[in-house]
């Protein structure tokens, strides 16, 4: 049975914890709004670019002159997994769900006798994957100094990946990130970026002229498309992280509240018990006289 003083201290400490989680929740809520706005703002560009790439890919795709980014290397041996996680923890299952998906994919590929290479973006994923898949790491992108993820960051990652592709280091690249659905639900997603998988071309009755040529434009656009997909993934991830943190901290705040209630009841009971005990002592002392 803890003493009254112990109980009081514990209530105090849980109250402090609740203050912290509450503050974190509010910070996450503010950041979430900004992250969502950023994701929203990037959508027109991404949509347009995907539409144009899809249109071009359907017309150029079948020919022999199709760029390597679209046609692939012709092999399916070496896979690059780009695992995008957060730089910080305390955001519920956010990092774990991405890592779990990536690990499942890596094990599946290894079981098929494929070579797996892993590029990590964000510290948390690296830490979680190091133990069983650490031998497969080929690189890491540190975004902990970046306050606000910009297109420049995505471009750097894309450049790194494209250079590796040109050097023949891998055949297929897949990115892993959390797609933002709502504050309480983020969907871990695997998306193949190389060779490009253009969506279905929307049938239009406009026939475009292409300058310089369809092939040249496609060759110019595909690397940008890779960068844009990474950028979109980074933004989705950013929004998801804040959403996950917000709901995790909301739960933590509520749990702390419940705990405080329980501890307070226990505290009141033991105080009452002490008072009763003292009264009994006084009364029985008086009766003995």
């Amino acid at each position: 049975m803890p003493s009254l003083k112990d109980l009081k201290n514990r209530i105090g400490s849980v109250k402090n914890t609740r203050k912290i989680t509450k503050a974190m929740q509010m910070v996450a809520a503010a950041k979430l709004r900004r992250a969502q706005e950023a994701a929203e703002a990037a959508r027109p560009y991404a949509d347009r670019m995907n539409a144009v790439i899809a249109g071009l890919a359907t017309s150029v795709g079948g020919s022999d002159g199709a760029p390597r980014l679209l046609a692939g290397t012709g092999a399916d041996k070496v896979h690059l997994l780009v695992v995008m996680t957060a730089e910080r923890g305390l955001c519920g299952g956010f990092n774990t769900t991405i890592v779990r998906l990536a690990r499942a994919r890596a094990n599946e590929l290894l079981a098929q006798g494929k070579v797996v290479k892993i590029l990590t973006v964000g510290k948390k994923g690296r830490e979680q994957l190091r133990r069983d898949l650490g031998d497969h790491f080929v690189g890491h992108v540190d975004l902990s100094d970046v306050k606000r993820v910009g297109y420049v960051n995505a471009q750097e990652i894309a450049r790194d990946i494209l250079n590796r592709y040109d050097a023949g280091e891998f055949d297929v690249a897949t990115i892993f990130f959390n797609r933002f659905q709502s504050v309480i639900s983020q969907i871990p997603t695997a998306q193949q970026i190389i060779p490009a998988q253009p969506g279905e071309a929307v049938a239009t009755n406009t026939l475009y002229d292409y300058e310089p040529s369809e092939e040249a434009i496609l060759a110019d656009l595909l690397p940008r498309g890779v960068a844009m997909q990474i950028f979109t993934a980074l933004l989705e991830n950013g929004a998801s992280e804040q959403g996950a943190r917000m709901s995790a901290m909301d739960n933590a705040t509520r749990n702390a509240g419940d705990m405080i209630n329980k501890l307070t009841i226990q505290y009141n009971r033991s105080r009452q018990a002490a008072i009763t005990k003292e009264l009994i002592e006084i009364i029985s002392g008086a009766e003995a006289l």
Partner: protein
Amino acid sequence: MANTLQFDLVSPERKLASAQVTEVQIPGADGDMTAMEGHAATITTLRPGILKAVSPQATLAFAVTGGFAEITASGVTVLAERAIPVSDLTGTLLDELIQEARDLAAMAEDKDAGDKIVNDLQALRYAATH
């Protein structure tokens, strides 16, 4: 009132401009072109240069470094990786861009394309400061 077309300029991070204009001057990879209402549907890549959207009220001018433009009879959508309003354009900013392009050109396999971008940027720098 001249016929107008819808002009949109978007960068990966946000929408930069959206307006009704009468003509858009585009620095296309194969040469500059001006799109007006009823232009044949065209998709072109951009080279570094000045993009101008002219409307009776105002002229919007941006320096773009690359990307592509989609022209239809009723509108022009420009997707630029980086677009800077000409009023914000300074020599130092352009020098940075040129340096960046040089670094990239040095890494790229296709030397000609990289050098061409550097040349275009230098022409832009010259035009902007003289």
